């Protein structure tokens, strides 16, 4: 189920602009790794290199290696479509397909992957919605459009959609930044449950959140505007928040930094 990610020497560009430079790290399976850092330091960019979404941006380009249990995602002959079926993603703004019902949203990824019998599909959709702690709220209106749900419910619907295809890794880019505190708590609880099954990487601008949900935390920074973002350090979350080994991390965490 869950796989280890080994990144080495990863650099990503937008055209000629180098957004992140020479990042290497290891992400443990069945754990939550949080990315923190000032905005613009390339957290989202880096996250999107982990499922080859970066190259979807026109002029997006990547150098370096990302190994998923030893297999290079950027190796020649690797189809990015298959990578994205293995590494799921949840976005900053909830984005259920507005033209699809709740059921069809969750089933969307499954239908891409192959044909399922009606009752198989029903089972997986139910299991995924339960996995996303949404089942009780929507079980009576599975055929209603997903866009009719609240923001927090929509985000959990997106999580259900992502986990329905049983990915190896789940990437989340500030999944709570558009949500109210109660929905945020619901998602944080959910992340705690999901890490039993998936390798989770979450970008967050909220340091309490990083401290609450993650096992390990990576701090990114950039020397100046226009400079590429870099990984400053990655360590056990507890250690990052109590006794980081780099001064810049401590400055950022204690708020002595932009």
């Amino acid at each position, binding site marked *: 189920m869950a796989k280890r990610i080994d990144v080495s020497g990863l650099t990503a560009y937008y055209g000629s602009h180098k957004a992140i430079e020479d990042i290497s790290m290891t992400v443990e399976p069945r754990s939550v790794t949080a990315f923190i850092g000032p905005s613009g330091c390339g957290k989202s960019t880096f996250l999107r290199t982990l*499922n080859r*979404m970066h190259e*979807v941006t*026109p002029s997006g380009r990547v150098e370096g290696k990302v190994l998923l249990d030893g297999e290079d995602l950027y190796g020649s002959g690797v189809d990015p*479509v*298959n*990578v*994205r*079926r*293995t590494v*799921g*993603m949840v*976005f900053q*703004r909830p*984005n*259920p*397909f*507005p*033209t*699809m019902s709740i059921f069809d949203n969750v089933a*969307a*990824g499954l239908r*891409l*992957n192959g044909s399922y019998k009606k009752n198989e599909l029903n089972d997986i959709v139910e299991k995924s919605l339960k996995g996303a702690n949404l089942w009780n709220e929507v079980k009576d209106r599975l055929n209603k*459009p997903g*866009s*009719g749900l609240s923001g927090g419910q929509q985000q959990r619907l*997106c999580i259900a*959609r*992502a986990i329905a*295809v049983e990915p190896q890794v789940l990437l989340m880019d500030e999944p709570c930044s558009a949500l109210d505190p109660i929905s945020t708590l619901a998602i944080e609880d959910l992340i705690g449950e999901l890490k039993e099954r998936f390798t989770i990487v979450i970008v967050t601008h909220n340091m309490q959140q990083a401290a609450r949900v993650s096992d390990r935390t990576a701090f990114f920074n950039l020397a100046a505007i226009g400079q590429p973002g870099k990984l400053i350090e990655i360590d056990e979350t507890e250690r990052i928040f109590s006794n980081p080994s780099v001064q810049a991390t401590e400055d950022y965490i204690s708020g002595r930094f932009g």
Partner: protein
Amino acid sequence: MDISTTKAPPPTEPADARPPADDRRKSNSATRPGDRVFLGLSRGSGIVLLTIMGAIAAFLTYRTVLALSDNSGNFFTTFEWDTAATPPKFGIPVLVFGTVVSSIIALVIAVPIAVAIALFISHYAPRKLSGPIAYVIDLLAAVPSIVYGLWGALVVAPHLVGLYSWLDDYLGWTGIFEYSGGAPRSLMTVGILLAIMILPIITNVSREVFLQSPKMHEEAALALGATRWEVIRMSVLPFGRSGVISASMLGLGRALGETIAVATVLSPSFLINASLLDPGGGTFAQNIASKFNEADEFGRDALIASGLVLFVITLLVNGAARLIIARRKEYSGANA
């Protein structure tokens, strides 16, 4: 025709809609002078527009009544258009058939091609290529109808002989695709020409809609492991659906009312010919254009009566399109 496709609510409807507008104004107790001026202007131009529309409708209806009261045939069932005879005898079934059939052929051919071109421009072509293609399509829209008509009659029609013979060989048994040879200045040829004529408008409007398809839904599909075509199927097409319908209706409006190109290409007759490949038939606009000059006062009234029917058909088509769009509003991209 374009005005009637986009506007043209029955004159009474806006009058009904006005009281709520009044309420809205009253609830806004503090109105600024600027608001008041704008309200006056918009209401004034609304009234002028309605008055003009009402006047046109009244004129058409009056002349129609004049014509119909002296018709010795049945306006809806007579396969003849002889307004100079005594007593005059005329009816529209041939025109209804020809207009509807040629427009449907045009839509059936044009919509899939237009959607494909629009998708290619918006989601497949590299930027260097999409600009020029869009420009050429725009140019097509600027070609005058008469040029299309001449081109259709002199260039396209002769080239269709081969295709029609082939269709006759394989599908002649259906009756619809029977071809007896000769110059193919038929409803099918008209439909093909109309398809080319309405292609630009449908392509352009669809392209605009596809370009606006939200990035976040395309990325949602991509992140699930969708291929480019699957992204289009899951997020772009559903989002663009109502836009494509509107675009098709714009095209249909043009096809229904197209006059000079049809009159140039078609070899008309007052018969309903089951075979669409053989010459014959007619459309409302073409019939009016080819008969108006020689017609006497009564003949013109009769032609005006047929124009009114075309107007009603266009209204119905628009209403149907609105219904289709409204029925799935809940699921539209608009409340994303």
